[in-house]
């Protein structure tokens, strides 16, 4: 037990150091084709799991349709993607990828996962954003309030690996 007490003291010392080290916001991410291709992998962890190919709608602002098409091209065979403008209906899509500053949060159906850039996620207009790192690793960011509002839930193992905001 003496060892445990000593160990606890080590742990407390570490705890006191932590606030001083906390800093740095994640780099902002932009939804482009490669980022979207990573982001839609989160669909594999939705509960309940959707069937494949999974229908996805890409919503692009006017003037952003080329970016929308680039995203559509980058997505794999596990999804069927459609590019629409913000005036269109989103019904039937399991996930919605937002390009630019479009806000579809008010018109998204229950259970739809809205994917956007970091600013969109932090503002609560999107539920999920992906930060791709130079090493090739990916970091998934989720807005918990947006997820709850949309009634979207992930597999618990995946949920423990994401960064919640």
């Amino acid at each position, binding site marked *: 037990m003496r060892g445990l007490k000593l160990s606890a003291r080590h742990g407390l010392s570490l705890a006191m150091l932590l606030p001083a080290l906390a800093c740095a916001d994640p780099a902002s991410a932009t939804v482009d084709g490669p980022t979207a291709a990573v982001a839609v992998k989160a669909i594999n962890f939705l509960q309940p799991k959707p069937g494949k190919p999974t229908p996805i709608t890409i919503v692009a602002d006017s003037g952003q349709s080329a970016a929308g098409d680039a995203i559509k091209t980058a997505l794999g065979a596990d999804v069927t993607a459609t590019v629409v403008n913000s005036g269109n209906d989103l019904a039937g899509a399991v996930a919605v990828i937002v390009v630019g500053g479009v806000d579809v949060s008010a018109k998204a159906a229950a259970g739809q996962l809205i994917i956007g850039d970091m600013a969109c996620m932090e503002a609560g207009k999107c539920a999920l954003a992906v930060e791709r790192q130079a090493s090739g690793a990916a*970091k998934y960011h989720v807005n918990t309030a947006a997820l709850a509002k949309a009634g979207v*839930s992930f597999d*618990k193992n995946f949920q423990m690996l994401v960064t919640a905001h």
Partner: protein
Amino acid sequence: MKKYVLLSATALIAVGAQAQTINYTALQDAFGQPVTTSATGKPQVASDAPASLRIISAADIKASGLDNLPDILSRYSGLDVLRWGTGAADVAIRGYNHGHYGRLLVRVNGRQVFNDHYAMVVWNTLPVALSEIKQIEIVKGPVGAIYGFNAVAGVINIITVNPLYDETGTVTLRAGNNDKREANMVKTLKLGDSLGLKLSAGYKEADEFQRGKLTTAERNRLRDMEANHVSASGLAQVADNIQVGVELSRSYSLQDNYTTTNTYYAIDYVARAAKLDVDVDAGNVGLLNLSVYRNWLDFNYLGLGTASDARLTVAQVSDLIQLDTDHTVKITSEYRRSEMGRWPTPGGRISADIFAGSLMWDWKVSDNISFTNAVRVDNFNLGYDGAAMTPRLLSEFDTKLTKGSFNSGVVYKPTSEDTLRFTYGLANQLPAMFELGGFYGAGTVGNPELKPASITSIELGYDHALPVINGSFGITAYRQQTKDVKATTGGTADRILVNGTLTQTFINAGESSSWGMEADIRGAVAGGFTYGASYTWTDIDDNLTINKGPLPTRPVYYEKASPKHKLRGNVGWTSGALSADLGLTWQSGRYQLRPGAGAQTGFLIPTKIDSYTSGTASVAYTFSTGTEVRATATDFLRASTPTTSVLETERRVYLSLSQSF
């Protein structure tokens, strides 16, 4: 407040939940790096783990071209392999290696394959074909608070493909020099969306090495290696939120072990295991796991004509709860019973009942800092049933003790490319059942009062991603201390009074400490080339209460038995269907104890093993039909290399033919 919203939402939808066990393949694909539970018990991407962690992927295993786990593990920093023969090897982490090394816990899919009876791993009895391994997770440093006794140098978790998520089918045939022959097969089968099955079977044999300095008695005891295994497992989604898994296995190995008494014995082992897992996504109650398994081991020392058996039963319940977005806890309770039939003189059975409880708390302090703590308490109760073990009194086997283990770690990521890690660990190495009283022979008896060795470690690590070379660099430095080092029986000079009778027995024998460092770099460059290099420094200082004379009498000699320096490097190349791999290792000299003869009878002679360089090479061609033809050579630089002071490791050359289906 908002942090709890996600959890509430999850609870509402839990009825429709799936995937209680981890889908390593899908998670690695999503996160772009391997995912592990080895460091804390909760899923983490490898770079977040508060431990010195190395994950060997299925692709790494395949690219190496090697045919056995110890050879594969020997390619990584901090690991030290003593190869005793074609079948037997001991794998150590951070020094202290010897015959029947007992500081490393090894598990296959969560089931302990470390054998409590002699505190050792018989690698040939692992019921696994290399082609079914999803990943091998190596945690360096004590992790007793997560795994309990014996995870003192580290833990190796071998994860095989999951038949519910992964599909694989491979048949492999191998043949080579030393009359090597091998065949193995792995196949997964999906029956609908809710049931996956996996079958694995294999057989291998090879002649024993011949060169080396052995006594006539030892040489007469050698046998050629032979091993086989069969295992069947299934995972079923029995409800939306419940998975049930079953594993059954049997394996056999005949091999020549270099034992703690510093001599060879041919031993045959039959290992059997049965395991049941139930995983439940219980909504906001967490991820529940019930794991129950039993290992049976029959062993027979052929040269002595004496056999016995050991049995391990484990029942574990755990709950992994994400309290909110920043805090995750894992609560575990465990009961385990280890038994062993008295050996080599039968007539009794020694047993240990262990009740344990542990708590892990992971705190995400900020986006770039995490702080993890884990504590575990083990209550140990020794028992003995059978005939008297004179001079021991049966009342001496009524031993009880309580030991605590602790792990703490901070991971700080100042940038997306840099990770700093500081960890502290306290773990306990339980004596083998053999040492506590399972051994009873002429003039020698176990010691039920032998204390667990206590190991503490403090460690600082730094990892840096190097996107410019599509690779990474890492360095770890540590300080480790071992108290109450266990010492095996010595000669007649080491006899002590046990209840008034001079007896050879096992004792605690002082302390040993070490400094160490591991540095790794790896990357990939244009043209299909990959490369890796590592340096391992290990400096051990023994402060023992034994072996004070001019020559050792008890077989404990750690400070000169571990090579101080090891350099490793490997280069891989792939171009279309063709691939090749070359690995080179240099290590400094070390000593190993050998029994003295003539005037030195009763003493152990430190015998120098000179520094050496060894190499492995493999080249493969894969046809469009999924057929792979591969040639591999190990220790190919010379006909045989004195990697130990006994049997030399001979050059092995073999051809492998694999077919996917």
